[in-house]
């Protein structure tokens, strides 16, 4: 299907030339890359801040910074990582780039709104960074902005709240765009159950973005009103209720975890069939489990607050649903494993990352059940155990899926091949470094190490020491991976249209894709992921 009449989107010359051709482009592929570059920059900033925190914790007592600096660091690390990187993350980068291609469309439903979302995103991200330098010092509330401290803190919390509000708005508009795109723009013949599974995951994600984000929007506005106008909703001295804030915050922020992880699941679901050369196992089950996660995930927020004061029945209810929401996630794991079973497995870097995703995600998932059970939660609440669980899900899950997606789609996005050997070495660093960094937190957490703590008792020293070593190894791996991609972009071999022998639509167009994606919109006649003959596909 290669066609030289249309230049690749990277060289395409539209109304605007040069840098304006990127900053004013409504091409979903270019917007995807704008998100990608922004996310890489912010990710390394926040990762470096994390490394500074780890260096501080390498030994008890003061090592390199003051306690207040440490408080500021874990706050901005959290705000950037959560609101700027993982919430938009996979959906904004791979969703923007590949959703239209995977469903056989030329662009998203609202291209201008898409670009506007990116500008909102950048505005929010810059405001978040500015909060470090404006007003009265870096915010020190943690990314959760818990009242009453977020109202009392003398630092510039309002900047951070506004940043999160704007980022939320950007997230809503992206979700809205994707829902309408999926409803209206599918290629002829692509019925719902013929849609690839990454779009399905994005569809489930987009509904959470649209339905949950406004709640945190209004909650952040209420905290701003609380700070500026002394309005009293969350202030017990004025009759308000701080626990109410926690409810409102987690009504969004728990579903937000699924905003992060669902696209990640979608990405690896694309990778397993391709590198096993075998149809995905249980297409329908994966679709239903994505929707089930999105739906049930909406009703489990209370499990963040088991120790905050809730009725017995409320705790029972939230704990029960937390166990229920683990079921569809487990179904997906079974599907991925079964997809590989009996396939001709080709252990290239994307699959390596996808398999480590399963491994890390399962550790994160099972420890999540420890936290979701009422009795064990009381023991582990607000300890390093939570930090470990959280990073296994967010970084081990979403982060490694992001790396998997980068290695999978890099040839398509940039039209160049990267070096497998360097990619594999970087994977070893990342995987070993990651586990060394976060696994000790499970142990010291159970032993009683509190989270967000600047100093600690000598008995936790070994755990913290190993963890800091892991942080250095991980950073080295991340830099090596980045170097590999940059080198590939400059000097990599030209990528063929279909380097992995994939069968979804993005592999049927040239690498990099032309400006309009398809010369002719394809007709879809079967379900995706059939690697054999057409007859088999129609069975």
């Amino acid at each position: 299907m290669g066609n030289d009449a249309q230049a690749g989107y990277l060289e395409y010359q539209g109304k605007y030339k040069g840098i304006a051709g990127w900053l004013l482009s409504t091409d979903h592929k270019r917007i995807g890359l704008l998100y990608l570059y922004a996310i890489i920059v912010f990710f390394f900033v926040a990762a470096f801040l994390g490394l500074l925190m780890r260096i501080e914790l390498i030994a008890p007592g003061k090592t390199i910074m003051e306690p207040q600096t440490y408080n500021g660091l874990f706050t901005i690390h959290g705000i950037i990582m959560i609101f700027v990187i993982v919430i938009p993350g996979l959906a904004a980068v791979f969703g923007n780039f590949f959703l239209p291609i995977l469903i056989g469309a030329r662009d998203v439903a609202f291209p201008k709104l898409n670009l506007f979302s990116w500008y909102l995103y950048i505005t929010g991200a810059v405001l978040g960074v500015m909060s470090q330098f404006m007003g009265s010092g870096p915010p020190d509330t943690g990314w959760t902005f818990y009242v009453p401290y977020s109202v009392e803190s003398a630092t510039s919390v309002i900047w951070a709240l506004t940043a999160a509000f704007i980022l939320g708005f950007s997230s809503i508009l992206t979700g809205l765009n994707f829902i309408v795109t999926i409803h209206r723009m599918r290629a002829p013949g692509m019925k719902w159950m013929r849609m690839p599974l990454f779009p399905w995951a994005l569809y489930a994600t987009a509904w959470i973005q649209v339905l949950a984000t406004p709640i945190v929007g209004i909650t952040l506005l209420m905290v701003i009103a609380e700070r500026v106008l002394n309005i009293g909703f969350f202030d017990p001295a004025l009759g308000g209720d701080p626990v109410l804030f926690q409810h409102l915050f987690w009504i969004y922020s728990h579903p937000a975890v699924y905003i992060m992880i669902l696209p990640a699941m979608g990405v690896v679901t694309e990778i397993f069939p391709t590198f096993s050369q075998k149809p995905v196992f249980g297409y329908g089950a994966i679709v239903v489990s994505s929707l089930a996660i999105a739906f049930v995930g909406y009703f489990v927020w209370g499990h963040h607050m088991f120790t905050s004061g809730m009725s017995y029945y409320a705790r029972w209810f939230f704990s029960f649903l937390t166990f229920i929401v683990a079921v569809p996630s487990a179904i997906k794991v079974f599907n991925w494993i079964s997809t590989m079973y009996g396939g001709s497995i080709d252990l290239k870097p994307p699959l390596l990352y996808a398999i480590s995703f399963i491994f890390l995600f399962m550790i994160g998932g099972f420890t999540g059940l420890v936290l979701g059970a009422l009795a064990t939660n009381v023991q582990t609440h607000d300890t390093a155990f939570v930090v470990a669980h959280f990073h296994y899900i967010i970084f081990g899950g979403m982060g490694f899926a992001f790396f998997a997606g980068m290695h999978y789609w890099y040839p398509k996005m940039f039209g160049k091949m990267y070096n497998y050997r360097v990619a594999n070495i970087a994977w070893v660093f990342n995987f070993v470094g990651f586990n060394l960094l976060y696994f000790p937190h499970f142990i010291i957490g159970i032993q009683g190490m509190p989270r967000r703590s600047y100093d600690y008792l000598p008995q936790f020293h070994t755990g913290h020491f190993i963890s800091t070593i892991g942080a250095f190894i991980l950073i080295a791996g991340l830099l090596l991976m980045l170097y590999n991609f940059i080198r590939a972009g400059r000097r990599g071999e030209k990528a063929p249209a279909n380097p992995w022998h994939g069968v979804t639509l993005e592999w049927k167009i040239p690498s990099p894709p032309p400006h309009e994606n398809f010369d002719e919109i394809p007709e879809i006649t079967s379900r995706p992921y059939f690697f054999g003959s057409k007859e088999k596909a129609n069975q």
Partner: protein
Amino acid sequence: MTVHQTHTEHIDSETGKLGMWIFLFTELFLFGGLFLVYAIFRAKYSPEFHHAAEELNAFIGTINTVFLLVSSMTVAGALTAMQKGDRRMTLLLLSVTILLAGLFMVNKYFEWSHKFEYGIWPGSPVLKNMPHGELLFFGLYYMMTGLHALHVLVGMVLLSINVVKVRAGSVSSEHYLMLENSALYWHLVDLIWIFLFPLLYLIT
């Protein structure tokens, strides 16, 4: 046969409307957070909410409700007129809608300044000496009507843009998606008021 959407083409009307409806859902959820807080504090401080609500002027509230309800009708009329190709009627009805919205805001201004005269504004000393329930009621009153007033202003801007576009001919009897979506937005603004009005003014 196929929807040939490219990077530059116009958005078809069904797609545009679907996007708008989803956006309106998010607006409902935004206000939903405040309704939730209202419900919780109302349950906790029923007698004080009862007392504080009597301070609000139900007469001004009723007039404002009438303004908004009539404006919903006129904006719907403007859309129908556009569909029938009657530009003059469209412009007339749009102007009436904007006028009614303006009257609503003027009323709101007097209502709020009247409260300020009594020393009732968020964080004021008078308010701080009131019982907790009344303080929270007025906090909610300002937050909810304030956010709603902001939406009225946005709606007025949107409708004004429509007036310009109808005059310029870029909103026409063939392409009226912008007008239709603005009208949908305006109905939402009314809808939220229809809930705010009884919750704040009538249930005493």
